[in-house]
């Protein structure tokens, strides 16, 4: 029952897939952002795991920066969300298709 790197990789993949499902099925913008957070977090697990198994700190660095990036994305994403909500009073994706073709 030794937990190897592959276990973590598989876990990451599953979580990533869940994130993808979220990205695809969510029509509510806020919920959609949740899903993108899941994607990034899923990858972070692997980074930490690889870092652990290789005894190398780079993975942790990467994970650290990914967290930072996720945080910044949230800020910008929320800003956009708020603006949109102020104007349209909803955050439904389906209302967001004035441009097409």
């Amino acid at each position, binding site marked *: 029952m030794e937990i190897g790197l592959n276990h973590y990789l598989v876990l*990451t993949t599953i979580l990533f897939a869940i*994130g993808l499902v979220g990205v695809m099925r969510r029509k509510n913008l806020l919920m959609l952002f949740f899903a993108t957070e899941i994607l990034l977090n899923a*990858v972070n697990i692997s980074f930490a795991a690889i870092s652990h198994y290789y005894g190398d700190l780079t993975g942790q660095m*990467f994970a650290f920066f990914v967290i930072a990036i996720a945080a910044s994305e949230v800020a910008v*994403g929320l800003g956009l969300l708020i603006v949109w909500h102020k*104007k349209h009073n909803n955050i439904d994706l389906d209302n967001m298709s004035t441009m097409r*073709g």
Partner: protein
Amino acid sequence: MLSPVNVSIESLNLMTLVPMLIPIVGALLIIVIDLFKSGQDKSLYVMLSLLVLGVDFVALMESAGIFKQNGTVMGVFDVMLIDGLAILSQFIIVGASLLFIPLALTHKRFHEFSYPEFFALFLFMIAGFQFMVATDNLILIFVGLETASLALYTLIAMHNRDKSFEAAVKYFTMGALAAGFYSFGSMVFYALTGSVEINQIATILSANNYADIGFVLVGVVFLLASLGFKLSMVPFHTWTPDVYEGSSAALAGYMSIVPKIAGFVVAMRLFEFLIHSGVVWLEVILYMGVVMTMTMANIWALVQTDVKRMLAYSSISHAGFVMAAILIGTTQSNSALFLYWILFSFTNLGSFSMLWISRQKNLPAHQQSDHSYDKFAGMVKTSPMAASIMGLFMLSLAGIPPFALFWGKIYMISSAVTGGYTVLALIMALNSAIAGYYYLKLIVYMFMKDPVVQNNGHVYVANATLPLKTIIGVAAMGTIFAFLAVNQLLELVTVFVYNSGY
């Protein structure tokens, strides 16, 4: 126990950071100025940005000089990588920005330019792109990319119209997904090699003789998806037309140049070693991607009714065309990429600027979009000069000699020929023919149709001011007289690319 590290300042090569630091400092300066005295006119910030970018340009020339002497320079714990690609792409980034920023001095008032934050974010974005191209560390690429992207989303949204918010949201969301892909891809490569530096990855992979080809491919797929998003390769391109339509014409033009060249440099660093080490799959996939991107984008551009959307698709197609360089992967093709992009930036910025000066605050009557083809009907009758210049840009985009893009085009196709990609060369040529149709369509509208009633021609220059006209003049001159500069450019580009080992 951790031992203290001794680092000498010289070994850090802090010079490598200077070109990126300049815009950051400039941005901070702008924010500080606003802090002390708000409500300043936009011209102040425009000129400040111009100055900062000018200084940046000089700094780049300095690093170019150093590169010519010493070759590739690593700096700051080998994170920074100043090679020919980095310098060339930074030149394009800063140069295009220099051409872009005066476009803020419009005749009409637009929301975004009332805020100094716009200019600060703009400069931050440039810094982000510069970091992105000046390193082969996947982490720094990621961080630089996100810095630039986040700023760009905001810039788009600041245009403050429904469409621009929609565009920003779309871009942002897809960007977040692409970021997920990027991190996943990096993770796979890290898992494979224990390194996040492209050079290292290449070395280790070839030392292993690509034993884990499956892993490599998974990593490539995710990185390809995320870079494909940035470079708007089919089918990751879907954001492009909407985002271009939603943002102001000037910014759309800018977006068609700068983020892409940054993306190209990263793609070049990432994929070229893979192609050269015989990852056939990637070659096939890139081949398909290039052909799809060129062809499909062209085909979609055919059916557009709005000029800006048409130009959006056209720039997708041009990006696909240039992507071929990475597939071919010879020194000639990589030089062609830069040559093409330099020439393209003049023409494309020019044509978007032409749309920009014809921009009105509200939608024109009876029209669905800002720049529908109908708006340009009979333009030659009312403002012949503007029509001629727009026609010139269209001809250049179509690749009619002797205008700028033609030279890029032949050099690119020639590189396909020399690289042994005959069929690709033919496809590239035929795609130019398809593209001819939609560029021609605008010319047809401008020169051969009768103007809509009550159009006195003012509409085409409604937004024009001297700075804007100057920029268009510069772009037009660059487009017409490109043939005088091609030789120098080509020699320069080839030296830089060749000495960087690409």
